[in-house]
């Protein structure tokens, strides 16, 4: 709460407010009364023990999970919208993009076509039938392909990529859509240090255009890129603040970081 | 009232027959994911087996022991269909795991072949099978309310098979292996499960159950090359309404279609009844897109 006040004071406008959200599976409460808010151009990390509820809350933001209580309000161009009752594609159209924990790209079309679907902003049947990608969009797409190192493989099918390469492709697709809010679930899992650093760099770059929520267990990476960190534990928020302050919290060390 | 009770029993009895006919499919389709269009032909194989057993009894054994054919027929119809299923799995089905639609087409082809084979071997016309005499009577309760022993017997048989399958699948190591293989073949193999053997065995069990059902069907219906086609759609509906992959679902599906169908038929006609119950199936799926007892799982939502 204090955090929130602080940010309000500094005049940072939030893009997303999670208000008293609870999520239940049967009689198991995976998320209990969680509130937080993500500011514009902020990179927020959600960290916390396995099973704390990080993926669950990302699922809720992008419409994959039903929220049993509370609101998730997105402050976009079209005003404030509660996304808890919206369909996935509509949420996506608001400008919320999502990368999943397990890499998932479309296997039946080439890497190039995967990117093409992602980069297009108009999603109606009419536009996918009659409109071609603008030159600027194509260039942007080429740029991303280069950046994620898949330019040479662009006419191949994603099935021939290794795990790490698929992660990159998915991040690339996400970037291509230029969302206002990006949700990244373990984007650097299975990546080498070098790739991780490259990802960090990239995130800092796109942060200029959007806000990002990252779920990650790689603390080095978190330190490098996070503005603020929310620590989840058993479905509640244990702590929130900068990486430095959070790292000092004994509770966080006990349940999450360990002695290292 | 009497009519109502009679109708209720009719519904339950139709349900038990459906369940009996669908159990094998619940295994091969629900569990293994093979859209087995030849399921009906496994019913047929069981039915013809019962026919042959009966012929042999009449030809070689004294009339006094005729009724015992029933036990032999039940066992043999299971075995013959299971062996056939085993062979088919080894030759064909095993190349189709994970290719549901292809399995549909191939088994469709197999069903054509099996039907024609039945025609070549037994001729096109139906053949007659007599039920054992102790099943030919009915338990008269009151007035027109009487319960044929056949129906009661099939009900018991269906329940028995249901529990057998449940026990095998959820209470034994084999069953656990079967389920593991069906969910992730590579990983099951990497844990030392002989997936090939499990696949054949499971398909054989499913086919055997169909054969057994086919034997039971000889007491109440026709035995001919096209026997299977009469049941194939209904049995698929049964498995799907309840939720493929759930045994309880199949029980529900059989009850829904059996009791609902006979009720509709009672108040309208057989044709309209059929239309109405299928419409209900379509409607129900609107609310329960994966069947009533859909297996909910985080990992399954791609």
């Amino acid at each position: 709460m204090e955090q929130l006040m602080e940010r309000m004071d500094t005049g940072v406008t939030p893009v997303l407010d999670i208000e008293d959200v609870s999520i239940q599976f049967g009689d198991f409460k995976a998320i209990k009364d969680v509130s937080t808010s993500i500011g514009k151009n902020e990179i927020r990390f959600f960290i916390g023990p396995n099973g704390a509820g990080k993926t669950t809350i990302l699922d809720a933001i992008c419409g994959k999970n039903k929220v049993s209580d509370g609101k998730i309000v997105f402050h976009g161009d079209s005003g404030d919208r509660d996304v808890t009752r919206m369909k996935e594609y509509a949420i996506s159209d608001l400008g919320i993009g999502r990368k999943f924990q397990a890499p998932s790209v479309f296997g039946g079309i080439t890497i190039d076509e995967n990117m093409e679907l992602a980069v297009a902003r108009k999603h109606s049947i009419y536009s996918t039938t009659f409109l071609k990608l603008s030159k600027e969009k194509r260039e942007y797409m080429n740029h991303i392909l280069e950046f994620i190192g898949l330019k040479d493989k662009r006419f191949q099918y994603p099935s021939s990529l290794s795990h790490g390469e698929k992660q990159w492709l998915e991040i690339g697709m996400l970037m291509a859509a230029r969302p206002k809010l990006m949700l990244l679930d373990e984007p650097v899992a299975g990546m080498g240090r070098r790739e991780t650093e490259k990802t960090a760099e990239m995130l800092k770059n796109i942060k200029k255009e959007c806000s990002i929520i990252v779920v990650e267990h790689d603390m080095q990476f978190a330190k490098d890129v996070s503005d603020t960190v929310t620590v989840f534990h058993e479905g509640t928020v244990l702590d929130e603040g900068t990486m430095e302050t959070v790292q000092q919290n004994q509770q966080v060390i006990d349940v999450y970081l360990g002695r290292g | 009232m009497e009519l109502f009770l009679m109708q209720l029993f009719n519904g339950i009895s139709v349900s038990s027959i459906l369940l009996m006919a669908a159990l094998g499919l619940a295994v091969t389709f629900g569990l293994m994911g093979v859209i087995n269009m030849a399921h009906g032909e496994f019913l047929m194989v069981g039915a013809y087996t019962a026919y042959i057993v009966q012929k042999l009894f009449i030809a070689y054994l004294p009339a006094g022991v005729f009724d015992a054919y029933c036990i032999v027929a039940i066992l043999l119809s299971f075995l013959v269909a299971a062996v056939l299923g085993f062979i088919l799995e080894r030759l064909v089905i095993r190349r189709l795991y994970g290719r549901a639609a292809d399995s549909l087409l191939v088994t469709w082809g197999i069903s054509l072949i099996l039907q024609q084979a039945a025609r070549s071997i037994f001729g096109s016309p139906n053949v007659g099978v007599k039920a054992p005499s102790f099943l030919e009577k009915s338990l008269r309760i009151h007035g027109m309310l009487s319960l044929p022993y056949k129906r009661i017997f099939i009900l018991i048989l269906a329940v028995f098979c249901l529990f057998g399958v449940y026990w095998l699948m959820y209470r034994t190591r084999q069953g656990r292996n079967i389920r593991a293989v069906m969910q992730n073949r590579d990983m099951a193999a990497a844990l030392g499960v002989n997936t090939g053997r499990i696949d054949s065995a499971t398909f054989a069990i499913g086919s055997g159950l169909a054969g057994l059902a086919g034997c039971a069907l000889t007491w109440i219906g026709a035995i001919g090359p096209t026997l299977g086609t009469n049941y194939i759609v209904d049995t698929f509906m049964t498995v799907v309404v309840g939720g493929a992959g759930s045994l309880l679902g199949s029980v529900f599906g059989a009850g829904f279609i059996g009791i609902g169908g006979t009720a509709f038929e009672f108040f309208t006609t057989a044709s309209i009844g059929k239309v109405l119950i299928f419409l209900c199936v379509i409607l129900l799926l609107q609310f329960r897109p994966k069947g009533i007892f859909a297996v909910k799982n985080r990992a399954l939502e791609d």
Partner: protein
Amino acid sequence: MFQLEGLYATYGEGMVLRHVDLEAPKGRITSLVGRNGAGKTTTLRAVMGLVKTPQGKISLDGRELQKLPVYERAKRGIGYVPQGREIFPQLTVEENILLGLEAGNGKGVIPDFIFETFPILQEFLHRKGGDLSGGQQQQLAIARAVVSGPKILILDEPTEGIQPSVIQEIGRVITELKSKMAVLIVEQYLEFVLDIADYCYVMENGRIIMDGEPECLDQDRLQATMSL
């Protein structure tokens, strides 16, 4: 002693492994590192028999495995933790572990040390594997492989998605296990793996390009390979 000699592997028409030689004796943690797409996963899948190996030898304690079916290799004592977890989503946690136990012809009870290492598995024993969180699934996958008591444990990026405190725990467990079995581990998390490994192979483009004890490896070259 586990050995790969001149192993080749193909995916359909693409050759992925070219002449891989590798040894992983009991009592030592052997690691295999390399960039994304180098062929590490393919190597482990080849060991397990999940990709085609047109040429080369795979042997465990002198017995050749490359002609055996997958399940037979598991029975001969390979425990496998695949990349991407591959738990059985509709089996309960308990059933998942029991499958592992039976792979090693173990019977009945799940040994306590599993639950001591991964307490969450005890708590969720009867939950469906597919409902677990990513990290929980990873823990389950490791538990499932370890519980079979294999002669060699092969792990593909076992720390992926696991919280830091549990990673330390996993490191400890693996170190303990090496007295009982050979361990071959594929990792991107270099700090972790170089810390626990006794011997290290570096792979690039489907070939082993260096090997040695972690301290002895040419650090510049290693860094260059990993970061290219």
